[in-house]
């Protein structure tokens, strides 16, 4: 009686153990496929071309699983210990994959190497899991049952993974937290096995400590996943990214190829070192050549210091005040050697005062009179920037402008943004200025527009230009004033704080060019 009881107890216990192992197959299979999906999604997201990415990732992953299965025959000894070891490793490698890849994207020379490295290692480990597990179970199962049960759970787990990944995980957890969560699950399987099987007693403590540390790290990453995501949020650039940084206001990315350096703010090209001289010479010199007595200049925006570089070619200037919202931007252009070479260290010049604050706020509270004001803001693509192109804003600028002074406003492309460009012109006119619209060809931007504005129509193209300009001379200035029919004036409304028509014009003008 006692005997039988113990026997049946033992049988139940043993069968429970096997069910536990089979359930771990289920979890392992789900985790395995999830890691593969994460790698594919992440690669499509960061590198683009999703068909290519998914296809190669699945290929490499399956191949690595094959390698893992092949390697499994070299594993001998305490199989349960091996299995737990593999579980922990899969958990660590798979769980870390998304956060590590996101963070490393901009900082490693070859992202693909790292990506496929992760995929291969995860694949090998996952490939090891099932053969090792089958060997653990083989003594207690008929072969046909074993194969049938293990693979059934494996494939059912796969289906589950493929369904919850797009429906639940990506929308609610996001890639980083999904990756960590499944790493976590792998660890949990390891812990359960550790405490369910007597034979693990010898190394239980050591493993538990190791797993606890991993779980703590995972939890921390899980809680800070948004920070990780923000830190690493990236886009695709044609050239090598040599610098990228997010400030509270914008994301700055600098790319480089053997010909040029490019600066992107929030993904929009700000300049290319190959032809920025055209843009900045055209921004500064038509106005400055007409102001031989100018001593005080205000630059709004233009944190790259390139307009200031052009201004400093006029020795009569005593002060240049630059107001740019983002200290991250001006700091970068004061300190990065590649960039200070480009702007000739203009922001470090003793004549130059850099103020990091909101331009609108600053001009409302200032009463200095300037001989020249340059508004070099980003294009009016949203309502916050649109305010810096309103009649109210230009009225404030008129207050700060000397009676014989000049205002120059970068005014987007008169070719693509034709209505936007003329809207800026009409808005400046409505604020009581006389305007002289002009444009220059900047290869990396296309046809680009500026509005020069005065209080008394005093501007003339007769002044002296500094030596060494590569684009602007008096002939160029004359040409810049002529607008061919496809950029000629069109009627528009005035841009005001309470209508922000310019943002709407800009959206419509540029809409067809946005991808």
């Amino acid at each position, binding site marked *: 009686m006692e005997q039988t009881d113990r026997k049946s107890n033992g*049988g139940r216990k*043993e*069968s429970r153990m*096997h*069910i536990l192992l*089979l*359930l771990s197959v*289920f*979890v392992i299979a*789900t985790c395995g496929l999830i890691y593969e999906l994460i790698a594919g999604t992440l690669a499509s997201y960061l590198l683009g071309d999703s068909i290519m990415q998914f296809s190669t990732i699945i290929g490499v992953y399956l191949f690595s699983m094959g390698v893992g299965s092949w390697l499994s025959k070299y594993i001998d000894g305490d199989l349960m210990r091996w299995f737990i070891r593999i579980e922990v490793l899969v958990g660590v490698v798979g769980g870390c994959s998304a956060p590590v890849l996101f963070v490393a994207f901009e900082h490693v020379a070859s992202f693909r190497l790292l990506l496929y490295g992760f995929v291969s290692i995860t694949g090998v480990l996952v490939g090891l899991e099932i053969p090792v597990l089958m060997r653990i179970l083989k*003594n*207690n*199962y*008929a072969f046909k*049952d074993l194969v049938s*049960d293990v693979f*059934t*759970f494996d494939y*059912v*787990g796969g289906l*589950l993974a493929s369904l*919850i990944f797009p429906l*639940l*995980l990506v929308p*609610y*957890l996001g890639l980083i*937290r999904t990756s960590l*969560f499944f790493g976590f*699950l792998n660890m949990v399987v390891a812990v359960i096995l550790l405490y369910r099987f007597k034979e693990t007693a010898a190394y239980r403590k050591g493993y538990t400590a190791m797993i606890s540390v991993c779980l703590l790290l995972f939890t921390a990453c899980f809680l800070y996943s*948004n920070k990780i995501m923000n830190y690493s949020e990236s886009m695709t650039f044609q050239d090598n990214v040599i610098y990228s940084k997010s400030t*509270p*206001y914008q994301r700055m990315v600098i790319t480089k190829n053997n010909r040029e350096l490019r600066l992107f703010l929030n993904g929009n090209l700000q300049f290319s070192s190959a032809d920025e001289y055209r843009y900045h010479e055209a921004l500064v010199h038509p106005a400055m050549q007409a102001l031989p007595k100018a001593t005080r200049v205000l630059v709004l925006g233009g944190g790259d210091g390139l307009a200031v570089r052009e201004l400093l070619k006029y020795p009569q200037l005593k002060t240049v005040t630059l107001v740019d*919202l983002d200290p991250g931007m001006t700091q970068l252009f004061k300190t990065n050697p590649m960039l200070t070479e480009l702007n000739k260290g203009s922001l470090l010049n003793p004549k130059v005062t850099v103020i990091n604050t*909101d331009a*609108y*706020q600053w001009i*409302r509270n200032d009463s200095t009179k300037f001989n020249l004001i340059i508004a070099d803001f980003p294009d009016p693509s*949203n*309502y*916050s920037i*649109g*305010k810096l192109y*309103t*009649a*109210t*804003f230009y009225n404030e600028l008129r207050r700060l402008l000397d009676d014989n002074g000049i205002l120059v406003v970068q005014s987007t492309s008169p070719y693509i943004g034709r209505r936007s460009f003329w809207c800026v012109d009409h808005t400046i006119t409505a604020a009581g200025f006389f305007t002289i619209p002009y444009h220059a060809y900047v290869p990396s931007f296309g046809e680009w527009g500026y509005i020069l504005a005065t209080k008394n129509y005093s501007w003339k193209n007769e002044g002296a230009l500094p030596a060494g300009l590569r684009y602007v001379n008096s002939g160029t200035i004359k040409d810049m004033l002529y607008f061919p029919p496809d950029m000629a004036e069109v009627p528009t409304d005035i841009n*005001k*704080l*309470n*209508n*922000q028509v310019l*943002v709407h014009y800009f959206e419509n003008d540029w809409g067809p060019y946005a991808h």
Partner: protein
Amino acid sequence: MHIKGVLNRRDFIRYALTGTSVLLAATYAACTAEGNRLAHIKGGIVGPDSGTGHLLRNPDAIPAPTSKVTTDVLIIGGGISGLSAKRWLQKSGQTNVLLVEMADHFGGNAHSGRNAVSAYPWGAHYIPIPDIRNKELLDFLAEENVVTGYDQLGLPIYNDYYMCHDPEERLFINGMWQEGIIPNSGVPEQDKQQIKAFLALVAAFKAAKGKDGKDAFCIPLDNTTEDDEYRKLDKMTFSTYLAEKGFTSPYLLWYLEYCCKDDYGCNLESTSAWAGIHYFACRKGKGANAEASTVLTWPEGNGFLSGRLRAQVGDNMRSSQLVFKLTQTATGAEASVYDVGKKTSYTVAAKKVIVCSPQFVNKHLLRNIITPERLASLERFSYAPWVIANITINSLPVKRGMPLCWDNVIYGKPSVGYINANHQDVNNSLKKVLTFYLPLSSEAPTLARTKARDTSYAQWLEQIVEELEYAHNGITECIEQADLWIWAHGMIAPTPGMIWGADRRAAVEPIDNTIFFAHSDLSGVSIFEEAFYQGIRAAREVMGG
């Protein structure tokens, strides 16, 4: 040995299902459970202090007066009508005026606050540009540089910084933000037709005049026609009227209910049809650089206007002073005033008194002065309770469609949406304060008030965050602070019969050319313009009498 049939079919299905459910449950738990996800939000219920007002329920417990002051005119209540009355008396040469206010601030529900991120309203937050016939109001706006001048046609030129900046309004409907609040995105054609028909109907009311040549609807509403064709609309509910006119579209009815909640804190069943139409038909402002729909607003809302009124009226202003008794004397009237700070009382003897407190306060104050009938009629003034939250966020999760506007409304939700308090600030601030307006209009006001009294900060926060999350998935983490203000009697409810019935007429009547009355509830509509008008009307009565 091996154990046969470890897994038969039934077991297999059982375990497969168990495995699946465990995984799904774990995933779900990871997706939703974030511990106490509101724990990081700072703040609390910051106002009002209802304790002072509740002393009125038992005036005998208040210390008896120990000193006495005299004044020509005493104004009881420093809301907009009280400030407006004092300003008008001052303009008319009467400067011996004392104003006492129960709360610790002036301006009534045009109250505002400020933190490191922005100033923000605690109540009313905008006015439409006024009718050019409303000269008194335009003069005040010109004094405060809201109107900067007049063009050749005599139209006011409004200050660009004070007209609501673009983009003005958006509505979260059918999963995205659309421009404007009238439902449009994903709305079926027949509903759009009904909306169009309704707007055409109110446009006709806006232009309509009565037999006496006066406007059918305008502000102040005392200037509207006496023609019964229009006034009879006050006898029925807005919902009855809409049903009679065949308006059934759920989108239109949602929008109209939103409007009733927004302006009156009421729903379609509790608003009179006259008031419902008035909301659409009364705004007749013109400007050289503005349209009839243009509104004037400030980061601190109408706190800007109350602040400017307060600055104009100068001295003899006492806050935290509760008038708990008012009696007539041979030379005028005497008020017993309790100084909340000093915990002592004094008497104010005045030749004339303007009572600028709401009627739910007056029914305590006037108990011994007015007839039982008049006292009973004060009981019939009904007030809508409101909850206002000022929520400081460090960023706003973006959803499809229109970007953040001044006024942001979520379709089908209990609140009337939120205002971006930073909107009128040209400074490009990353952090923002959102002012969230929740009228407690789904239940009768007294019931809603009782429930509100028993609702904790955490419960309000839960409710507000849930609604915000609906339109901004992930906003919870962006919230740094959320402060609440519970207005138990937020605004007068224009229930049927309120505006053109006998109660309102009776409540305006001065007593013996000594005690006069002014408050927006005497218009039946709680808006700045009416309070401003009521103050001037009462001041004129005092000066002319």
